[in-house]
Structures are given as structure tokens and as C-alpha cells.
């Protein structure tokens, strides 16, 4: 826990420095981001990373590979729903130990842009929770791909190395060239990180952002449900 926090803070410091140098070169502002907004972006982003858990531990995939998943499947529950509930619970804990510390660190030590209106706080919380659900949905899809791939480490690794950029963890999506921005906002990736940050900063239309996030969260969960059903049909239980 402490270790994860340290990592977030170290990478936060590195990101803040590079982005601040970029701002300085661009006369103080790039695409609605001034120095306070950039700091806020970095620290909220580093906190959200542990809260939405962009990179999981691939545990379910390992259980699929070893066959232990059978135990999970014959329990009287909907596997995806149960794991989602577990993940939301993890999120509650992560809120305190992963999201709050880097955010407070940033608030205390750096110029910080607080939400202009009080109502943005609950909206941010809502947005963050929806982001967590989408992130869970994607992780779930990556993990159950091992029903087909057996060894999903390639896909898992692929997600781990691309998601940071696609979701807006390292550079705000607003900094991307216009075509890339437009393409990215058509995908679910910004819903997992950039959208809640935008809600916090008051960038863009908050209702639109939340609807966009809700749409993708629902879509990803639906796909996950469907894929799981297909997967269960092909599970063969060996021995008894």
C-alpha cells in the first residue's frame, strides 16, 4: 500500500516536471491547461490510477489456466457481478489509501485547481465510480480472454503498456493532435481516467461526460456478460 503510494508520488513528480516544462515553453498554457490545472490533472490522475485499477493482477486468467475457475463458476452467483462487487469494495479502500494521498499531496505542495462549484465534488465521485466500473469491465474482458487464449499474458501486457496513453494518464488527451483526440473520445478509454479528471477540472460539459461514461460502462459490462456466457459453454471439467 505504502509502496504503491510511493510509486504514484514519484511518477507524479516526474510527470508534473515534464508537463510544467512543456507549459513554460508554450507560454504558460496548453489547451485549457495552465500550471494549476496541470498539477491537478497529474495528482488526481495518479490517485485515480490506483482507484480504478487500470492494471489488474491477471488473477482470474491464472485461475482459468489452472482450471480453478470451475470453482468460481459453480458457485450460485453471476461471476462477473460478484467480481464487480468485490472490485467496488476494493475501490472503497483504494479511495482512502490510493486516491486521497496523492491528491492531498498535490493540494498541499503544488498550485492546485479546486472545483469552482461545490456540486462538482459529488459529480467527480460519481464519475470516478463509473470509471472504476468501466476499468473493471475491461480488465474482466482481458482476463477471460484466457478461456480462448489459455495464455493471455500477451494481451494483458498489451493492455498494460497501451492503456496509460489511451486513457489520458501520462499526457492530457487535450494535448493530442485533433484527429487523435476525436478518435479517442469515440473509444471507452478516456472514460476510465480522463473523464473524471475533466469533471474535477470543469473541462467540457459534465452531463455529456457522465452520459458518455455511463454508456461505455454499460456496454463493456454487457459485452463481458455475453463473452462469459460463451466461455462457460466451452468449459470442460476434467475428472471429479
Amino acid at each position, binding site marked *: 500500500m505504502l509502496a504503491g503510494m510511493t510509486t504514484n508520488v514519484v511518477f507524479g513528480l516526474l510527470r508534473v516536471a515534464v508537463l510544467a516544462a512543456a507549459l513554460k515553453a508554450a507560454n504558460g498554457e496548453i489547451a485549457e491547461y495552465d500550471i494549476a490545472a496541470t498539477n491537478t490533472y497529474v495528482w488526481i490522475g495518479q490517485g485515480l490510477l490506483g482507484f480504478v485499477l487500470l492494471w489488474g493482477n491477471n488473477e482470474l486468467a491464472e485461475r482459468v489456466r489452472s482450471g480453478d475457475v470451475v470453482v468460481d463458476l459453480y458457485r450460485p452467483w453471476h461471476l462477473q457481478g460478484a467480481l464487480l462487487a468485490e472490485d467496488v469494495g476494493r475501490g472503497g479502500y483504494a479511495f482512502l489509501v490510493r486516491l486521497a494521498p496523492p491528491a492531498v499531496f498535490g493540494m498541499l505542495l503544488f498550485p492546485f485547481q479546486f472545483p469552482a462549484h461545490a456540486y462538482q465534488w459529488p459529480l467527480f465521485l460519481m464519475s470516478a465510480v463509473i470509471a472504476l466500473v468501466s476499468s473493471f469491465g475491461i480488465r474482466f474482458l482481458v482476463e477471460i480472454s484466457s478461456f480462448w487464449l489459455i495464455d493471455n499474458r500477451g494481451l494483458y501486457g498489451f493492455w498494460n503498456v497501451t492503456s496509460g496513453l489511451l486513457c489520458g494518464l*501520462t499526457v492530457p488527451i487535450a494535448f493530442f493532435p485533433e484527429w487523435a483526440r476525436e478518435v479517442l473520445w469515440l473509444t471507452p478509454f478516456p472514460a476510465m481516467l480522463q473523464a473524471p479528471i475533466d469533471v474535477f477540472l470543469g473541462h467540457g460539459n459534465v452531463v455529456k461526460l457522465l452520459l458518455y461514461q455511463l454508456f461505455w460502462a454499460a456496454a463493456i459490462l454487457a459485452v463481458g456478460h455475453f463473452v462469459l456466457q460463451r466461455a462457460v459453454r466451452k468449459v470442460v471439467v476434467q475428472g471429479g
Partner: protein
Amino acid sequence: MADVIYPRLIGARLRSQLSYRASFAMDFVTQVIAQCYELLVILILFTQIHALGGFTKNEVLLMYAFAGTAFGVADLFAGQLDNLPTYIRTGNFDVLLMRPLGTLPQIMCSDIRLRRIGRISGALAVLGYALANVPIGWTPAKVLLVIATPIAGSVIYGAVWVVACSICFWIVDGREFANAVTYGSNAFTSYPINVYSRPLRWFMAFVVPGAFVAYYPSLALLGKQDPLGLPGWVGWTSPLVAALAAGVAGLVWRFAVRHYRGTGS
């Protein structure tokens, strides 16, 4: 004995990885993409700006490429140390201690991850591009510097890896601490160090000698003045710093291993 065993061990590791071709190809591609991540970040930033910390895009790419190549090579040989917590927690470290070979080389040979070559080749490609596109007054000494820099850099990163992972002998779950330093210093050294705040620079550039991986050698190559005021010859000292770092790492490792207690069983 060691001279026979290590080549055989490494050979066996390499063959085992190449026997799953599709999986290896996917891993390889993932590593190339992983290396391109920071490249894309730099390219995206430079769509908005023309210089970062007073350096042009190609100059920053040169530093990024030196850092990436060095990190890739270090990762190939020292990345296995990330598994150290597992060895310690499960007590498997006992096994390494019982064999009549050094513990550190044993861990390093335990899993030479060939896919890391994907990372290295990605970085080398950018290095080629950057060297062709920045103004360098070539001399034989500078050619030597280009060759020595990634080697010295990988020794520095390797030393950082050993020291950072040694913490796992005290804090078994210390892998993320270690990663903050190892992966963190890769991210750190990919940019001109004058963009960082003073305490961060002090720690990551000089305590962890990250500045000698890419920044100072690049300045020497470009013939640029250091904005932080160090003299020009500093850029040529990376091999010395690397030797020093390796020596320190060796001492820290010995000290750490002596601290190890088996789990008994």
C-alpha cells in the same frame, strides 16, 4: 565450473522462450510498444511546443533513445531481480545460497527475457534517427562516446536495479518501492534533467546517477553547455560513474544477502 554452467543455463533459457513462437512474437511486439510509449509522449508534447527545457525535439529524442537502449539492456540482465521478493518469501533463496555459485549471477541467469530485445531494438531505431538528425561535429572520440554511453548506461541502471531490489531483504513486499526507482529512473532519464525540480534532480540525477545515462553524454555529443552549470568534460565520465555504481551495488548486495534469514522448513 561457472564458465561452463552459465552459458548452458542461458542457452537453455533462450531455447525455452523461442519454442513458443507466437507467444514470443506477441511479447516482442508488446515490448516494442512499451518502448514507444514514452516516444509517443514526447511526440505529443512536441505537437504543442518547440523546445523542452531549451532542447529541440530531436535532442530530446537522443536522450530518450540513450536512456531506452540502456534501460532495455539492463532489463534484459537485471529485470529478473523483480522476482526477488518471491524467492525471499517462499524461502527459495536458500536454494541459491546452497549452490557453489554467486547469488546475483544466478538470479540474473534465472530468466533472460529475450523479448526485452524488442524494447532495445525500438530504442536503437530512435537512436539512429536522432543521431542522423541532430547537429553533431563528429570526431573519433564522439563515435566512441556513442558506443560507450548505452553500455555505461545499462551498467548504471543494472546497479540501480540491484540496490533498489536489495530493499526486498528488509521489506519483503518492497517490489513497488524498487520499481519506483528503476522504472522511475527510466522515465526520469528520458528527458533533459533541467526540467525537474531541484530535490528531485538532486536525488534522481546524482544520488541515483541517472544524469550520466543520457543527459550528460548527450550534451557532450551535441557540444552544448549544461544549463545547470557543470563543465563539459562531465559528459565523458559515464563509464567511470558506471564502474563506481557497479562497485557500490556489489557491496550493497553482499550486505543485503548477509541480512537474509531462511524461512526454515
